[in-house]
């Protein structure tokens, strides 16, 4: 009896209209989602065109900057033992007073193996890399505080002071152009600390990216690895911003799906009033109208969502083809991922059930002479 009754409801004239109403709403969602997917995939592929870096930093987990980070200098050997590297550079960064013959200022000092560091930066050196009693000065800093190669400068941190000769002016096109670059021994003397460094910079050989996760697992809990070029993270964040707006917009769409399902269920109750009353009179379970109407709404929503996905996606593709034909520089390739398709169908079904429960419940309780609302 149940199957026959359900078939009877499906044969009603309004069924096609109901499916179409749901399908059109889902089509909006499918087409917009597919276009957004295209935009996001374009952004991702643009990101892949860039030479993604192979340089990483090990800094302390709770630090917000490299100046407030402190890591154990012994981690250098852990990195070298676990991953093929082009270079590993422990570095110490701190602020210090710089006194020249004509100037007194606060500058950023970088303690590092100067030769290896300048090589890693492909630096242009006017002079030579600093030895244990010398310093290199970044080109911008040198101009700002009027330092020349061969000058003697004093560097002071609290009560510790050292005098060094400027071995060369360097240009790296990085922040080091505004820094004083000194050998680690001088940095240790100034900070009175031989154990810890601010961070460790290392560059890996090609094909070693997979090893980063392994290395990460071997590091102490108080440090973290940070990639210096964050192309994918940037693209991901920008894409998430678009998706957030799309999600809000989807709420309005699913609200309309729920309203449409309410209408479908209410209309079905009105148009099948006689049939439903007859079923009750013939001894059907009192909950049968509820089950029938709910099943009807689920089936129409399911068919509507599948049809809507097809219409939306193909519609978007047709429009993009026409657009491409008219304006050759606009190339849009709308696509939908399988999990998005499943998500749209499931959320449509959930919204439909939500929208149809009340009219289905009313249909169960009403008599022939009553109206559903």
């Amino acid at each position, binding site marked *: 009896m149940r199957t026959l009754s359900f078939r009877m409801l499906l044969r009603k004239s309004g069924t096609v*209209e109901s499916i*179409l*109403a749901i399908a*059109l*709403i889902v*089509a*909006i969602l499918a087409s917009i989602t597919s276009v957004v997917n295209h935009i996001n995939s374009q952004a991702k592929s643009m990101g892949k065109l*860039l030479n993604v*870096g*192979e*340089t990483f*930093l090990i*800094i302390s987990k709770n*630090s*917000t*900057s*490299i*100046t*407030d980070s402190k890591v154990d200098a012994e981690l250098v050997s852990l990195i070298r033992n676990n991953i093929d590297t082009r270079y590993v550079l422990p570095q110490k960064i701190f602020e210090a007073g710089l006194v020249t013959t004509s100037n007194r200022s606060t500058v*950023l000092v970088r303690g590092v193996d100067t030769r290896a560091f300048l090589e890693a930066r492909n630096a242009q050196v006017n002079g030579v890399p600093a030895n244990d009693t010398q310093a290199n000065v970044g*080109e*911008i800093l040198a*101009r*700002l505080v009027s330092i020349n190669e061969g000058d003697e400068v004093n560097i002071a941190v609290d009560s510790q002071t050292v005098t060094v000769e400027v071995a060369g002016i360097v240009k790296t*096109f*990085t*922040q080091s*152009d*505004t820094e004083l670059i000194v050998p680690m021994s001088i940095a240790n003397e100034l900070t009175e600390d031989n154990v810890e460094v601010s961070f460790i910079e290392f560059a890996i050989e090609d094909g070693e990216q997979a090893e980063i996760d392994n290395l990460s697992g071997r590091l102490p809990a108080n440090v973290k690895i*940070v*990639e*210096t*070029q*964050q*192309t994918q*993270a*940037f693209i991901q*964040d*920008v894409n998430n*911003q678009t998706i957030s*707006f799309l999600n*809000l*917009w989807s709420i*309005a769409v699913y*609200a*309309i799906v729920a*309203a*449409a399902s*309410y*209408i*479908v269920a*209410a*209309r079905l109750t*009105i*148009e099948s009033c006689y049939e439903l009353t007859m079923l009750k009179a013939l001894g059907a379970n009192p909950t049968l109208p509820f089950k029938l109407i709910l099943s009807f709404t689920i089936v129409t929503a399911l068919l509507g969502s599948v049809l809507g996905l097809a219409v939306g996606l193909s519609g978007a593709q047709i429009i993009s083809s026409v657009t491409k034909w008219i304006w050759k*520089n*606009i190339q*849009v390739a709308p696509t939908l991922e399988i999990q998005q398709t499943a998500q749209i169908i499931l959320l449509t079904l959930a919204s439909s059930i939500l929208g149809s429960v009340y009219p289905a419940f009313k249909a169960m309780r009403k008599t022939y002479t009553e109206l*559903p*609302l």
Partner: protein
Amino acid sequence: MRLVGFRYLQRQSLLFLTVVLLLASVLFSITAFGFFGFYQTFYTYLGEGDDVVVIYDKRSTTPFTGIIQLQLIARIENISGVLATSPEIIAPTIIKDKSVFLRGVIPEEFGKLNPLTIINGETLQLGDVQSTIVGKKLAETLHLTVGHKLLVLGVLAERYLTLEIKGTYESNSALDDEAIVPLYVGQWLRGADYESATLIRAKIDRSELTSALLYEAIAKAETPQSDGKTGLTLIEEIIPISNTAINPKNLSVKETQQFMKTYLDRYGVTPQTLLILSVIIFIFTSATVLGASHTLIRQHEHETAVLRSLGASAKTLKLDVTMKTLPWSIIASLIGVFVAEAMLLVVETSGAQALSHTIHFQLNPLFIALNILLVFMIVFSSVLRSAKKLTSK
């Protein structure tokens, strides 16, 4: 027979039609206001005045990624009618795991085009080598305060650096979502050399110069030796700028809004396409409105049958049903507009962004009028269609 006094349509049924219309109106409004908010945010990204023009690399696929020679400033500054120039380099970065655009500028020159109100801390100088000033909204989003030190990671180049926040500013523009750094810091993060910028903005005297005339002047001009303390000499005090060949064929000069429009048009984002998209979405939801109208009429077939038997003509009945539903439809569309605006305002205040810039949603009278018109048309046609079916039985 006049039916004005007969309240035969149940309020509950009318209310449901109103809710459906309201939802359709909300969807239309969110789409229209949302997409236009996005459009307007980027259309006005570099300012709104027509006396500011942009000199940029026309080969660039996005407004953020072009590269032009800084040496151009020497040419531009000496052209009669140019009041101020500001070279700018825009660098996408990651700060505190969030995407942020940093703008490298010569602060003294930049201030002539975009005066910034410093809320906290101090203003930025070109010689502030490890400092930045951050926009009000960016500071709020990332919880940044003056004195805070940041780790800035590059996106277009392998770069990392540490910057101290020297101040926070308010500009009431897209700049509030960005951070401003000295020009050379932007160049590091962009992976560019010291001779390059993303674009140069110039303030011009409209009575003397247009963008087309400026382009001609740039193409013709020889690089002169500047004698005063110009933008270029300010940079050269810090970093030497070498002479590089300038190819005017790669350059273009446009008003700021036209510059952004060029890029938006390139991706098919125009006011017309956005309007068409919004209307299509409304039309697609109209099937639900048709269903709701049909259901309303079917729910009242007994009442209409009684009225017909009392002598009401089909025409009178159709007209009366239409007149009774139209006020509700107008109310629904207006409430829909305001519900959508309220939702978008919540989204805006919670920090909704596109390309790391806050989207500003604004009520547009044209969309409100269009919304009412569309709702009116759909209700009128659907009620008429359903009533016609009913009265012809």
